[in-house]
Each structure stands twice: as C-alpha cells, then as structure tokens.
C-alpha cells in the first residue's frame, strides 16, 4: 500500500515538473520581449534593459527557472501589467466561477453517462443504444466551442428558454451574499430560491458544452464495461443464489464496472477544474479560462505561466486523489498478493 502511494506521489511530482518546464520554455521561446510589451513601443532602450534586468532575464536560465518555480510555490505569481493587479488576486477572483462550472459540468456528465449507460445495458434496447452511441459519436468529434455555439443558437436564439452568453447571472441580478463564492450554493444558503434558479439557468448551457466531449468518452467507456461485467459468471452466480436480476446487477455489475471508470472520471474532473478557455469565452463566463484568453491576446506572460502550471497541479492532484481512492476501493490493488505462475 505504501509502495503504491509513494509511486503515485513520485509520478505526480514528475508530471508537475514536466508541466513547469513546458510552461517556462514556451514563454521564453515565444517572440516578444516582456519589458518592451510592458513599457510600450515608445520606451527608451535603456529603460527596457533595466526592466529586463529587474525581471531577471539576463541571469542564467536555470536561475530564472528556479526563481519561477520557487515563486510559484510561494504564491508569488507576479504582476499582471495588462490588468494592473497581482496575478494571485486576479486568479483568486476568477477561480470560484470556474469551480462552480466545473463541478456542475462534472455532475451532469456523470449522471448522464451513468444513467444512459445503465439504460442501454441492463436490458437490450437496440434503438436507445443506437441513439446513445450516436450522441457519443457526435460529442466525441465536435469541438466544445462549436457545441457552445449550437447550444446558444438552439436554446437561446430559437427556443428562448435559457439565458444567453451573459456570464453567471443576468445583468440586473446581484450575486447572493458570498460564503462559498459558488452562486448556486450561496443562494441556497441565503434562502433565495429565485437567485438559485437564476444561477442554475446560467450554468446549464456552458455546463453541457463543457461536458459534451467527456460525456461521450465516459458513456462509451461505461457502456463497454457494463456489458463486459454483466456477462461475468459471478453475475449468474449471484442470481443463482436468489438475487433478483436488478439486485445482482446493482450489487455486482455496477461496482465492478465503475472501478475502471473512476480513473476516467478523475481525468474528466481534473480537466474541468483546469478550466476551459474557449467555452468560458463563448459564454462570457468570468472564470480563469477567459482571464487567460485575454492574457494570451495581450501577451501577459505572468498570467499564462501561472495558469499553465496551476492547471497542471490541479489536474495531477485530482488524479492522485482518484488513484488513492482506487487503492482504497479495489481490494486487488489494496492487498497485493504474491502470485506467480
């Protein structure tokens, strides 16, 4: 068990290190001089030099890297010249919106994929099966921003049943008193069902757009796993003991089919939490993604660099948590027995 944990931890550290290198190198390789960008085209060369020196850009590359990485973990994420604020403050403001969207998207993705996978595997439903596989196929092949646009056209422009790309709340609605910074939760805490619904309505389309591709991925995986597990002899044995079909399915097929899906679920959640630049942009969602979008356009390095590394850390942490959870749930990982042929 401790072996599993330490191996996973080492792997996670390696992944974060790799991501930091990539973020660091990309920002160094891209054309454009940070100081020149900050100071503008009219600034005298000497000033640019001085700022470059101040930014440490003349130091050896490993010193620069070390500065970057140590500052990152100390929470010194630098100053965003384009927004005129500390990167930390900026990201801090935007994170709750991203988290709320990510959790919502994750929730509906999981519910939909589990529900539909169950629907088409518990009994043979050839037509439903074909539809689900069709949706999955489409979702897999369509880029999220395109899904966003389609959803907006259908539900906002044509049907007019859901709000348009106006962010987390309508223009005239004030956010509920901040406790968790998640508007749906805060609205409930404050006892304002109207605001809760308002926040929820705004979550639906970006949530769907974000979840679509991963729903396709998960539903296919779950469907295949369920089909495979439901053919296992232990299901027949469980029914032979006198368990009803559904009971046998629920107690034996579901847990076994879920285990391999858990890792996939972790990947999905990690991906959602890391933020989606394009979906957020399309829906004007005030999350980390749209912040980064703007930062990229303005070549605001400190924001982008921080975002890349932060996403990597987030992604790795979620997956580490899932791996550990896996080790707790699956006895075959938990109790390593020596088996040799």
């Amino acid at each position, binding site marked *: 068990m401790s072996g599993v944990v330490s191996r996973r931890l080492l792997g996670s550290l390696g992944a974060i290190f790799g991501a930091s290198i990539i973020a660091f190198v990309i920002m160094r390789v891209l054309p454009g001089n940070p100081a020149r960008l900050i100071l503008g085209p009219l600034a005298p060369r000497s000033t640019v030099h001085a700022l470059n020196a101040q930014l440490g850009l003349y130091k050896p590359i490993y010193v620069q890297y070390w500065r970057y990485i140590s500052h990152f973990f100390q929470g010194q994420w630098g100053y965003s010249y384009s927004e005129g604020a500390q990167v930390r403050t900026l990201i801090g403001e935007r994170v709750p919106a991203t988290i709320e969207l990510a959790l919502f998207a994750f929730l509906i993705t999981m519910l939909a994929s589990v529900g539909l996978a169950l629907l088409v595997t518990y009994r043979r439903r050839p037509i439903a099966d074909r539809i689900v596989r069709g949706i999955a196929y489409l979702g897999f092949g369509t880029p999220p921003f395109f899904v966003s646009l389609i959803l907006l056209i259908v539900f906002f422009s044509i049907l007019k049943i859901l709000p348009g790309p106006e962010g987390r709340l309508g223009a005239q609605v004030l956010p509920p008193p901040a406790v968790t910074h998640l508007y749906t939760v805060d609205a409930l805490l404050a006892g304002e069902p109207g605001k809760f619904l308002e926040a929820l309505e705004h979550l639906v389309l970006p949530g769907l757009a974000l979840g679509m591709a991963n729903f396709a991925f998960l539903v296919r995986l779950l469907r295949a796993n369920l089909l495979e597990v439901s053919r296992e002899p232990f299901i*027949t044995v469980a029914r032979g003991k*006198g*368990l*009803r079909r559904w009971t046998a399915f629920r107690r*034996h097929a579901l*847990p*076994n089919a879920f285990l391999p899906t858990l890792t996939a679920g972790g990947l999905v959640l990690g991906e959602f939490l890391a933020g989606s630049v394009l979906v957020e942009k399309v829906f004007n969602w005030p999350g980390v993604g749209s912040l980064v979008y703007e930062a990229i356009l303005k070549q605001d390095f400190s924001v982008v660099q921080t975002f890349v590394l932060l996403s990597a850390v987030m992604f790795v942490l979620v997956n580490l948590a899932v791996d550990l959870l896996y080790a707790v749930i699956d*006895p075959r990982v938990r109790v390593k027995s020596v088996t040799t042929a």
Partner: protein
Amino acid sequence: MSPLRLRSWTGRTGDGEDELAETPAKHDDAAGAGGSLALSVRNLRTVYELGHATVQAVRDVSFDLRHTERLGVVGESGSGKSALALSILGLLEPPGRVAAGEVVLNGRNIMGLSERRLSSIRGREIALILQDPMSALDPVKTIGAQLQQAIAVHNPQLRRSALRRRAVELLGEVDISHAERRLDDYPHQYSGGMRQRVAIAMALANNPKVLIADEPTTALDVTTQAQVLSLLDRLVDEHRAAVILITHNLGIVSEFCDSVSVMYAGRLVESSSCEHIFMRPTHPYSEALLRCVPNPERLVEGPLPAIPGFPPDLSALPAGCTFASRCSVGRELAICHERVPSRQVVQGPVGDASVECHFARERAAGAPR
C-alpha cells in the same frame, strides 16, 4: 401448460426439424415411475437469436431427476449443455431464450414464473455451481460478504452476527481452515481450489434439493479436482440433494454419477445408468467419445480412434441424424442422413437405455462394432 409453449417452433426451421418437432417426446417412464421426482424437464427448447441466424442450443429435451439422483450430462463445448443448465434455472440472458418447455421442480412448473418468484426459488430449492472459480466470485467483495449474501437473500430475518456465524460454519463445512479469519479475504487471496469450495458452500447454503454443477472441476488441477469432487460427494450426501453434473469428462461421470445423458447438438442422444454407458455405449457418439480419449485402463498402441470432422453448426443443422457425417456406423447409410432417429428405449446388459439412433436395438443387444 406454460404460455411459452404458444410460441410454436414448428415451421420456422428446415424439413428435418418439422419431423423432429412432430415426434412425440417419448420418455423413459420407468425412471419416473418411482413417484417422487426432484426435477422433471419436458420438451425444453432453447434458442439464441443472433439476427443473422438462430442457434438451436437445446432441442426438445426431456429428462427426469429422482431425489438424490446424480445425473451426468456429458457433451462437448457447443453441445448445448450449459444452455440447458441456464434454461432450467431461468437464467438465460438475451439473445438466448427458452422457446418452449416445462421445468417441473418439486411438482411445480417453474417455467415462465416471474423473476420475483423465480428468485425466491433459486438458491433455496435449486442452486448452481459454475466452472470457473476465477470469475464465479465477485472480485471486489469479500468471501464473507458473498457467502452471507447467499444466506441472507432467503433468510432476511437473520441478523448480521448470525449471518456471520453461519458463514463461518459453511466455510468450515467445505474444509477451509481458519474460517473466521479467512472470511474477510477477497477472492484473489484464495487459490482456485478454495474458490471452488466457496462456490460449493454458497450453492449449498440454503440446503437446496437440486444442484446444477456446470463443469465444477474443469478449471482445476487434477489433484485439486479429486479433492473438490470428494468434498462435493460428501456434502451432496449430507444435504440429500440431487445433482446434475455437466461435464465433458466421462471419467468424472464414472466417479460421481448414477446415471448419464450424452448430449450432442442440443439433444440427449443417449440416457442410461452409468453402468450401461461404460459397459455398452449404444449410441455411436457415446462409444466414440469413450474411445477417443486416452484411457489409462486400456492403453492403445497406434493412433487413437478419433472422431472425424467436428460438431455441426447449431444454426444450420443437417437433415437426418446430426451425428451421421461423423458416425462410424451411419456415415454412408442413406437412412441416417435422411431420417431423424426417434428416441427408443432399448434393453442393454445392465438395464435400459434410451437412445436416439436407427440402430439402437441391434447395438444394445450385440457387441458394439
């Protein structure tokens, strides 16, 4: 009569099948005359509908099982023997389904009962043991949980502690030492033989009177097989259960069973006592099956008398006798390729046998060959 019988099979298949369907299923009434039957299967038909083809896994099979009788059902893979087991228990999954027939368990037809009624019978009156001890247990649940589930499902009034006590007892009954401690292990921590013991314990947990064991020892090593077979023998005696043992190994039939049915292409082509089949196998397939495996008791020199060809495709059965093209007797005889042999009860040196062969009478009387 079961509502399932309304779905007549006749007319959906080739000519030979029609003839077969019209043949009334005569059965050896002598066996049933004893009065109390544990299980009686009548005209069971099982099909797998695979879109492009319909596989006839079990074709109009009837047999009786007396109380505490041990019947061996012998056949190769694809002969329909596993489909027979699942059909009796009502555990067929689509695309398989029972097209017709009755299964009378302790005097009551259970075919066509609701899943609810059936599940209250399964495990309590009739239980199942499967071949592969690796996959017959849920890998993510403890042995104890799975044993207790088998008990609890028919004894909802029992408390946790009582369930656990009973599970420990059961493990002890199947000779697993340190039962109390090993109850919390997971299947992968058990050896193949121990897993099969657990499967036996689960099957016998509610004292069923009929046990269906589908190749219970096939996946085991030969010495482990011997241990498990002895255990099964002892427990079945103690529980006074009747057994249908499905196997491809006639040696196991010899060691365990009272009577035997040889299955070929979905039919029971020969049913008799164990003595009969080893003394005078009457159907040419039974005889060939006995001869084609190396037998340590009568070692042959030179080539083994192999059965030529391979079993027929159950979705496109030939006309006439399904074994004709491989048969040492009827390969060249027109009658075997044209007419389906009906079931006849013949007199052998040690009692009756019911055989589906045009030459059953001659073969049962004289020395085969």
